[in-house]
């Protein structure tokens, strides 16, 4: 069964460092998303991406964040200068028509 894959599964980084979280969406999907879940909190939307551009972003997705689809298969989230409060599980998701989204296993980001 097709699935969304994310790498790495766990990333530890120093505050102020840049991190890139990687995702391979389901191959025939057109809509791509990043969500995150801070420990003990809700899953919250970060950004959606369609037709090679950002279609929507939340207030969390400030200038420190960027997304890219560098080739036909990968979808990345970059955090330029990480803060302690960026520590969370980051989930990539994809959808064929923009309704049911299928999530990856997540990347646990720990900023120390």
């Amino acid at each position, binding site marked *: 069964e097709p699935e969304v894959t994310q790498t790495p599964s766990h990333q530890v980084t120093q505050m102020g460092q840049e991190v890139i979280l990687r995702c391979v969406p389901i191959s025939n999907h057109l809509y791509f998303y990043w969500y995150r879940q801070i420990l003990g909190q809700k899953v919250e939307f970060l950004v959606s991406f369609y037709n090679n551009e950002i279609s*929507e972003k939340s207030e969390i997705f400030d200038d420190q964040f960027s997304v890219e689809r560098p080739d036909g298969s990968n979808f990345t989230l970059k955090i330029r200068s990480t803060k302690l409060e960026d520590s969370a599980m980051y989930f990539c998701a994809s*959808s064929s028509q923009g309704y049911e989204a299928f*999530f990856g296993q997540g990347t646990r980001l720990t900023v120390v």
Partner: protein
Amino acid sequence: DQQVKQNSPSLSVQEGRISILNCDYTNSMFDYFLWYKKYPAEGPTFLISISSIKDKNEDGRFTVFLNKSAKHLSLHIVPSQPGDSAVYFCAASEEGNKLVFGAGTILRVKS
């Protein structure tokens, strides 16, 4: 942001019985609703969805009911199995845009 609420943090059910998970929403523009199941340290797994033009959708042991006038939906699992023990998230979207999640309900199915 409390647009989607799951007021029961946890639910405990005996194996074989029905599990009913509830969800309320406030945004009348939501037109698509989904339930996800999540195990610790894993991503949410899509379970079942319903469009606002329907009031019921069934898939095997899972049925979702939507009451638009009450802005309420529920997920019924019958019969419940120990493997159903997980966190269940209700989510809603407007015209297929971003998902807004509830806080989740921990379901424990006792054998």
